[in-house]
């Protein structure tokens, strides 16, 4: 590998990480963080497509009360009981695929892997081999999920609650093994990022000169390293329970099902911040760049990421207010839960303050960033309902919760992922996508997302429990349940359409897109200082480090279609392109 790299070093100046070496093997065994990032990107987007397809099936089933496509045909269950089992397996796999295969690795392992070392000015991550191992662990974990899918499914819900999971006939053991392996994939990514940030910063790159995306990834990595092992031991104990009935969670043997929930949420609540923190990092980057303004309150944003990461460990019990947890513990967890809302609020206000007196251009990444603020705003504010003890009693395990976490996970993380994907797309592929189509798709995503999930808040407050195959009992009393569900299903299809549109113009840009300039958006963090796509080693010599949010040294070059360093040293008003 090393020799091969050394041999091809002497190619032309257009040499980049994509053209650096050729052939399938040069990709599959690559140690280059950029190529691993691209492999992750392709893989997790495949997982997103699978999870999205399953979501469509769920929404079709729920479009009307009673069996619609499941339980009345030979393909998806010939009788209602079979249809219900299939529905249960589909929502389980939708959750498991989206969470373990897409959202958790989504931003850190795919975009983070590509961008973090370049942003820092490093040649690679600290442990390139471990990075590749972590990718293949993801692949093996995904293979286990596939095995589950073809060999009997899984119907426990992604939460794997005992004792249901120890009494079902479906493939809990294989799924558990998959989750265990994916957990280690995530741990290794986190470990790698922490070590990279600590040791591979070039001279001048002090902690408070790091871009906020790096801060967010660092905080995420801390959670990955500290929380994910508990997921490992949880599924291991679940496996022990299944394998030889050890009796830790099974009440029939003296175990305690509520203990399982403590174990599960000790990981899975911090995991929520694994999903959302890197997304917030992307938003901090894009808001600042597209407003041409220095990010407001840099230190507050940076430190609030760390605060969220640490406080996030202390709130897991808010998933258990009505699960038999003691009122004392519920009180403690509720109080701590509200403390996490403060750093999140700080971030939102700082983003808005960044836009103040800026020069805002609504390119596609900015469109996504703004919809992130609104959608995450709704997601965060509805979290207040669920954190308040008495209100949680009626909302727990209803569609209100479903809507809440889709607003944060999907309206938050997925939308930010799309913002980041579009923002770094020219850097990753070296091609520009069609900005107009991008803006249209972003608008479609925003509108259809709200159409899909806002009705679910109402379904929830009015009493529709989650994980319901059939809501006939409810719709008989109140026809609005049918109408709201139908809204949601229509929205889901529009959302699916927007995603297909996004995929098609992005793929189109790979072949027909205009070659990207080094700095199409005018960012000042280090990844915009190297060519698009970056060369194999990122930087020949350690780059000069400045303030990543100081844009005064850049000006737009219409010939190039991108930003270049300002030629005169005298500060002059920036001339901006009219969108």
């Amino acid at each position, binding site marked *: 590998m090393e020799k091969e790299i050394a041999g091809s070093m002497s190619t032309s100046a257009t040499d980049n990480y994509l053209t650096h070496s050729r052939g399938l093997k040069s990709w599959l065994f690559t140690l280059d963080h950029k190529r691993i990032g691209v492999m992750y990107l392709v893989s997790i987007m495949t997982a997103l497509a699978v999870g999205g397809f399953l979501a469509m099936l769920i929404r079709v089933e729920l479009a009307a009360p009673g069996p619609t496509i499941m339980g009345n045909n030979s393909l998806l269950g010939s009788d209602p009981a079979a249809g219900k089992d299939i529905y249960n397996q589909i929502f389980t796999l939708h959750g498991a695929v989206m969470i373990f295969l897409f959202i958790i690795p989504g931003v850190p392992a795919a975009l983070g892997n590509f961008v973090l070392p370049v942003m820092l000015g490093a040649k690679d991550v600290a442990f390139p081999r471990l990075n590749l191992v972590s990718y293949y662990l993801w692949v093996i974990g995904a293979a286990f999920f596939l095995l589950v899918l073809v060999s009997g499914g899984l119907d426990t819900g992604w939460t794997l609650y005992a*004792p249901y999971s120890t009494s079902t006939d479906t493939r809990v053991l294989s799924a558990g093994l998959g989750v265990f392996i994916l957990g280690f994939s995530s741990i290794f990514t986190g470990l790698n990022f922490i070590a990279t940030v600590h040791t591979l910063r070039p001279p001048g790159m002090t902690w408070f000169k790091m871009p906020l995306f790096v801060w967010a990834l660092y905080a995420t990595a801390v959670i990955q390293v500290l929380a994910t092992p508990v997921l490992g031991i949880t599924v291991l104990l679940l496996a022990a329970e299944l394998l030889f009935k050890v009796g830790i969670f099974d009440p029939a043997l003296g175990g305690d099902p509520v203990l399982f929930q403590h174990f599960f949420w000790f990981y899975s609540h911090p995991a929520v911040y694994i999903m959302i923190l890197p997304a917030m990092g992307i938003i901090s980057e894009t808001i600042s760049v597209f407003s041409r303004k220095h990010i407001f309150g840099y230190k507050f944003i940076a430190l609030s990421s760390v605060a969220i990461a640490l406080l996030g460990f202390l709130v897991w019990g808010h998933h258990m207010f009505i699960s038999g947890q003691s009122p004392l513990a519920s009180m403690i967890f509720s109080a701590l839960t509200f403390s996490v809302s403060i750093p999140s609020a700080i971030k939102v206000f700082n983003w808005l303050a960044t836009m103040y007196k800026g020069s805002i251009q609504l390119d596609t990444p900015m469109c996504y960033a703004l919809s992130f603020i609104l959608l995450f705003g709704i997601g965060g504010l509805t979290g207040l309902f669920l954190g308040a003890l*008495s209100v949680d009693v009626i909302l727990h395990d209803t569609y209100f919760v479903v809507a809440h976490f889709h607003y944060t996970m999907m309206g938050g993380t997925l939308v930010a992922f799309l913002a980041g994907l579009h923002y770094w797309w020219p850097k990753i592929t070296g091609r520009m996508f069609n900005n107009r189509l991008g803006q249209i798709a972003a608008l479609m995503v925003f509108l259809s997302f709200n159409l899909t999930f806002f009705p679910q808040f109402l379904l929830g407050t009015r009493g529709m429990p989650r994980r319901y195959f059939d809501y006939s009992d409810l719709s008989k009393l109140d026809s609005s349940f049918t109408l709201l569900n139908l809204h949601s299903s229509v929205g889901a299809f529009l959302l699916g359409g927007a995603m297909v549109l996004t995929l098609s113009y992005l793929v189109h840009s790979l072949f027909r897109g205009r070659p990207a300039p080094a700095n199409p958006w005018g960012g000042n963090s280090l990844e915009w200082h190297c060519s698009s796509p970056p060369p194999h080693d990122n930087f020949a010599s350690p780059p000069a480090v400045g303030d990543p949010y100081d844009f005064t040294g850049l000006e737009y070059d219409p010939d190039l279609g991108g930003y270049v360093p300002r030629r005169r040293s005298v500060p002059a008003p920036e001339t901006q392109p009219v969108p």
Partner: protein
Amino acid sequence: MTAPGAIAPTLSTASGWLLGQAGESFWLPPPDSTLAGAVDPVFYFILWVSVFFFGLITLLMVLFLVRFRRRAGIGPTPSPSHNTPLEVTWSVIPLILVILIFYFGFTGYMDMRVPPREAYEIHVVAQRWQWMFKYPNGHVDENLHVPVDQAVRLIMQSKDVIHSLFIPDFRVKMDVVPGRYTKTWFQAKEPGQHLLLCTEYCGTGHSDMSATVFVHAAGKFEKWLADAGKFMEDLPPAERGELLYRRHGCQGCHSADGTAKTGPSFQGIFGQTHAFTNAPPTQVDENYIRESILEPSAKVRQGYSDKMNSYKGSLNDEEIADLIEFIKSLK
């Protein structure tokens, strides 16, 4: 970008209003128990706080987008990139609000968890996928009957996996956990009927696991309970068996019409000979049915798994005889 930001949620909300649900109960179901007082005001307080802040965020965003959109020849205006008093302000105001929310939520929650001393006790047994309500006189019912204006305390247990008892109109929800007792309480305000649902995912029939709550007018509840105790004596055995079949949740797994569910259907089963995974082929007769009810794992039918709970202690000999008559009657 901005207009949709404001319009989309409004559209959704508007469509909700158009469903004829406008008025007091647009968000929440009718407040039919005294516990609504612990929930609804907190809910609306948070709702208005949220609406205010969401409106503020949207307003500022739209304002900045219009005012500071990129125009040729005009760059960003220099302004400070940090302001500590401002940061402290927008940290402290939300902090005060969330402390208030926590306090309201907490006090309401304590009201919901602590029943008054003089509460009427009903035992609830949950199993896949059936609720059973046991009354002090020993009567067992598949629906929940309660007196109006009287605190009712539910003591709940599960025979298999975790379930959750949810009565939206009463603002009551509590998980039913195997291996322990969980408790909740409520006091209904008006006579009437309400829906009771399961909100903890419990498998195939999760969405079917509902029951009806009947709130009896003052004085009627006692009469109902006394009648309930006598009703069955007058029925022929097969009909008694059918009632037991429904009440003890048999129909959750065993159909009476030939459909295979989690367990074999009862239709025509009597007199047939079946193969077992752990026993020689046996004819379905009285002894076999009795054994299957009391020790389900002794003979596990081919093609089905060993999932049934034992009914030892919950069905007496006469009741088993009634059930056998019922199964015989299903030709």
